[in-house]
């Protein structure tokens, strides 16, 4: 009797589980196939640090993405609203997951700009992929996001700027060209700087340059002891921080201790209002976009909307990312007969986008082998006495 009773309970449990599973499967399918009319206002999520040490980056990108949406969306017959999710770098990658869930839960969000940092891509790409949301970054450069046997981002992740696999070696070759014999490389115990420092160190070592690697927690602000460890004959300190104020502080402390090494910051330090020690370098994925005549009207329009802002190098890639996303959304709308039947339709269209006169120069298209831009480059700037960033490589 007891055995029969147990069997009955087990059977009920199995049936209940099967029903629950079917119901949840149905819900998932329903969520994925819920069509969104392209005549209604569609949303694009923007996840980036808008506050904190890297807040300048997110705000610069946002101003350009907004400008792109304002000027380009009407041309495609789209009504687009950007919604933001702040991910200060000081809070680590956990906050990126929270922001991702917020975007995923909103069925009118059809694509995402960002995440802006590699660590946040790693933290949220899987969730975006499961929800079928394309996420296009204008600044996440870690190589492993798109390359290698175990990619740390999903196929729904795209970037319009090249990764560390170009930046690290490019920076290293520049230092070698400048006669570097001894280089100290820093990482900040997080993916962005570790990837860059690894890539640069590999090239430097291969070319016979003496290298020293120092690792510092992302929360450290007093670099005195680290500066003490920099050899007096070091030529460069490769310092890929995401906080330009730290690069400034480090460069000041080098001078304070009488060290002659020049600071070489990467794109994360590229902020002329915060990092301004003359003779230092930064590298970035965008050149001076004003050199391309076809950008004049875009720059003028953006400046009109943002009269207090200066033209930096984080913003233009965000414009390009928005251009790519809007193109893909338009195509998905056309294919869906005026509605986006599944967010994955946007993902599927992104790789096919071609921009003839890219704001970053030349033709933009994605590589067929990875979700990276084809033939993209990095650019090196030297900080001048008046604080200007001059393109030198």
């Amino acid at each position, binding site marked *: 009797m007891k055995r029969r009773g147990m069997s009955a309970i087990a059977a009920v449990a199995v049936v209940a589980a099967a029903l629950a599973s079917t119901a949840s499967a149905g819900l998932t399918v329903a969520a994925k196939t819920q069509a969104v009319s392209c005549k209604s206002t569609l949303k694009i999520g923007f996840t980036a640090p808008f*506050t*904190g*040490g890297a*807040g*300048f980056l997110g705000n610069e990108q946002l101003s350009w993405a907004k400008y792109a949406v304002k000027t380009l969306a009407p041309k495609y017959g789209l009504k687009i609203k950007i919604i933001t999710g702040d991910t*200060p770098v*000081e809070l680590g990658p956990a906050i990126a997951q929270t922001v991702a869930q917020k975007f995923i839960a909103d069925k009118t969000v059809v694509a995402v700009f960002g995440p802006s940092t590699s660590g946040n891509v790693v933290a949220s790409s899987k969730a975006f992929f499961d929800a079928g949301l394309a996420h296009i970054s204008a600044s996440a450069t870690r190589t492993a996001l798109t390359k290698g046997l175990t990619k740390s981002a999903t196929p729904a992740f795209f970037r319009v700027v090249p990764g560390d696999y170009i930046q690290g070696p490019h920076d290293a070759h520049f230092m070698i060209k400048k006669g570097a014999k001894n280089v100290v490389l820093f990482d900040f115990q997080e993916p962005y700087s570790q990837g860059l420092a690894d890539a640069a160190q590999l090239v430097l070592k291969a070319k016979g340059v003496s290298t020293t690697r*120092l*690792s*510092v*927690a992302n*929360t450290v*602000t*007093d670099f*005195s*002891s*680290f500066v*003490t*460890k920099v050899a*007096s004959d070091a030529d460069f300190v490769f310092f890929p921080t995401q*906080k330009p*104020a*730290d690069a*400034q*502080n480090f460069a*000041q*402390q080098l*001078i*304070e*201790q*009488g060290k002659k090494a020049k600071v070489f910051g990467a794109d994360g330090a590229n902020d002329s209002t*915060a990092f301004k*020690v003359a003779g230092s370098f930064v590298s970035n994925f965008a050149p001076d976009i004003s050199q391309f005549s076809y950008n004049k009207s875009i720059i003028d329009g953006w400046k009109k909307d943002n009269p207090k802002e200066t033209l930096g190098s984080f913003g233009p890639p965000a414009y390009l990312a928005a251009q790519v996303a809007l193109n893909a959304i338009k195509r998905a709308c056309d294919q869906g007969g005026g509605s986006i039947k599944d967010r994955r339709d946007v993902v599927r269209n992104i790789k096919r986008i071609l921009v003839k006169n890219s704001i970053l120069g030349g033709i933009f298209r994605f590589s067929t082998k990875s979700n990276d831009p084809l033939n993209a480059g990095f650019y090196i700037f030297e900080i001048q006495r008046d604080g200007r960033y001059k393109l030198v490589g």
Partner: protein
Amino acid sequence: MDTFIQLTLNGLTLGSVYALIALGYSLVYGILKLLNFAHGDVFMVGTFIGFGAIQLLGGTVNPIVPVWTLLILITLAAMAGCAVLGVVIERFAYRPLRDAPRIAPLISALGVSFFIAYSMQLLFGSELRNYDTFSLDGGALYLEGFDIGNVRVPMIRIITIVSAFVMMILLWLLVSRTRVGKAMRATSFDREAAAMMGIDIDKVIVFAFVLGSALAGAAGVLFALRIPTYATIGFLIGLKGFTAAVIGGIGSIPGAMAGGLVLGFAESYAQGYISTRWSDLLVFVILILFLVFRPQGILGKADIRKV
């Protein structure tokens, strides 16, 4: 040898700041037997007041006053602002709990600490604030100074170290040579007996908070002259100041000075000779070792209990 001298200089600079913070802990603990864990956040507010004062004085590129006047004014502004904050904290977070069990003001102190840190973060954001002293007088504070062997001792470090020592000496003179200092010592020794002798205990306590908080404000400016600050920096720096106070002997003014310097040197040498990653770990290992083997600290007196 150069590395040793440089690390010693780093330790002395850092230790001077820790010592000023530790003095605030010791002053309050000596009188109230209260661990004021909000003290680190008062320090942080001091760094922000200094930053704001610099902006009001025209910034560092083209300040509207001479460099030395600017440095003095921002320090005084931070000291005054923090002194007021200290009084407010005492009045609203500690005084109502003065007769409560000792755990209550301790929890209140932690609450005040988080309240200040996150209020500042909400008000001013979490970005780093750099005083940009490098732009003052064409970088003179970094480029001028003197050399010990091959080691540069720049003006900015001299300012930090000398100012901290001057303030420590002034405080020591105030506590040991003045009438109000005598009242503080009497209150610290036996609060009830001091009250019976006519000392206004409330005034003494408020004065201790004013002094301690003003020193934290000064420490904040001296720290932020060289290092960027942010809204939550006070927690870790405050813990280190507390550790310095324990090492020196909490409640002892010379002890707080000694503890701050010992901690600064320990951290600097650990970063230089052991590992930069392990320096914070070492700081708190030292704290545990002192608590276990010498709870009265270097210069504190052992607690004698009569049975």
